[in-house]
């Protein structure tokens, strides 16, 4: 069955129907509805998140996507690979003698914020602050009124922080993301509000999600020692392993859509106000697309990608960077660790469909390097 009804709305289960729903121009992403479910019906957080690139459609959406695309061009993202690899090596070597670590502490809270600071030329000492603001604002995905205060406070701090970064780059432009966006503003490709909103969303979209997916990739591989051995003997499988482990253990379980008008998707009628949950966690194990879907196989030849980064007009522009971060983390871990196993569960707080990873304790046997 491609669909199921649940308390929260319509669950979209098959890969094909998930693709159809994500591509359907008549369905809204629905950040407004999520914010309203947290009791946030107006104010700065509502205004900014409602008009941000992940939520809007039409000409403004297409124009902002075109404006940021050159920054995420693969050749540019690639220039970060060596720097991140060296930094990761130092970090892994420092924990080597302990034989155990927390993946979230070692990598998740550190690597995505490091990447953001590199892109924005922000001081590295801002990392814990960036982490906390991102974590707080993301709580609007939980759709609970109890989160209102945290989301609004985090958002206020994040917006002031972004304003200070923009002011600094305006005074002294560099070869960074914010200077790039400010140049787009000077050429009238973006408005000042759009530059600000884009920097806000780039902080939010790059930190929590990459942390969660990294933790999930390690969780999957730590439970499959034969796959870890296969990767150690053939590191060329690493890029495939990142996608396969992301398919098997997605950090984001579902993406939402809202039917604001009565609609129909692949023959299913929807009342106005229906929430749809595009369940990546089900689609990524659709046997029509991924044969033997419950097997983790780092050699799997995928004809279609896992849906973690969506498809269609809201496809994640930061995917090359997120994938690169995970590839390098895995590369360094494979070199340093002969074996790895879980020492406890993946601890996460919050949303019913977005993992916010807090802890993933693992034990490893250091490799002879």
């Amino acid at each position, binding site marked *: 069955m491609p669909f199921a009804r649940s308390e929260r709305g319509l669950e979209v289960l098959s890969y094909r129907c998930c693709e159809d729903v994500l591509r359907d121009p008549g369905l809204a992403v629905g950040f407004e509805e999520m914010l309203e479910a947290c009791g946030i019906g107006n104010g700065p957080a509502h205004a900014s998140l409602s008009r941000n690139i992940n939520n809007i459609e039409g000409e403004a959406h297409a124009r902002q996507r075109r404006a940021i*695309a050159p920054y995420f061009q693969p050749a540019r993202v690639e220039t970060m690979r060596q720097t991140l690899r060296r930094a990761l090596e130092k970090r892994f070597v420092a924990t080597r003698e302990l034989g155990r670590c927390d993946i979230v502490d070692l990598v998740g809270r550190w690597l995505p914020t490091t990447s953001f600071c590199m892109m924005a030329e922000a001081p590295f000492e801002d990392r814990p602050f960036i982490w906390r603001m991102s974590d707080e604002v993301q709580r609007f995905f939980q759709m609970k009124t109890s989160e209102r205060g945290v989301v609004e406070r985090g958002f206020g701090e994040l917006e002031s922080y972004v304003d200070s970064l923009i002011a600094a780059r305006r005074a002294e432009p560099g070869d960074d993301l914010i200077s790039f966006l400010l140049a787009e503003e000077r050429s009238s490709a973006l408005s000042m509000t759009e530059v600000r909103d884009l920097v806000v969303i780039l902080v939010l979209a790059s930190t929590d999600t990459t942390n969660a997916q990294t933790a999930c990739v390690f969780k999957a591989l730590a439970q499959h020692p034969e796959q870890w051995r296969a990767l150690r003997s053939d590191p060329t499988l690493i890029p495939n392993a990142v996608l396969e482990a992301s398919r098997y253990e997605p950090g984001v379980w579902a993406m939402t859509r809202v039917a604001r008008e009565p609609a129909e998707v692949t023959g299913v009628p929807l009342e106005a106000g229906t929430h749809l949950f595009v369940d990546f966690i089900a689609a990524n194990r659709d046997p029509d697309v991924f044969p033997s879907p419950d097997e983790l196989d780092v050699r799997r030849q995928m004809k279609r990608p896992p849906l973690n980064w969506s498809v269609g007009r809201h496809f994640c522009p930061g995917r090359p960077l997120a994938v690169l971060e995970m590839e390098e983390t895995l590369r360094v871990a494979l070199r340093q660790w002969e074996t790895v196993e879980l020492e406890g569960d993946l601890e996460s707080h919050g949303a019913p469909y977005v993992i916010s990873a807090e802890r993933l304790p693992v034990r490893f046997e250091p490799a002879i390097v």
Partner: protein
Amino acid sequence: MRVLADTDQCIGSGMCASCAPAVFELGGDGVVRLLEAHPPASELPGVREAVALCPVQALGLDAERPTDQ
């Protein structure tokens, strides 16, 4: 040089439009549009990169035609 784009396979990653913006564009619907099916040779490096980086192998160059399904 002849460039091919399979719009049914396209997931909208936008890799092609950033590798060779004179040849590929991403429409508002998130699907690739071919701006130039016979681009000049100067576009070859960008097109080759786009073909190599497309996450779903939806692009082809001359004989390297994507499989029709």
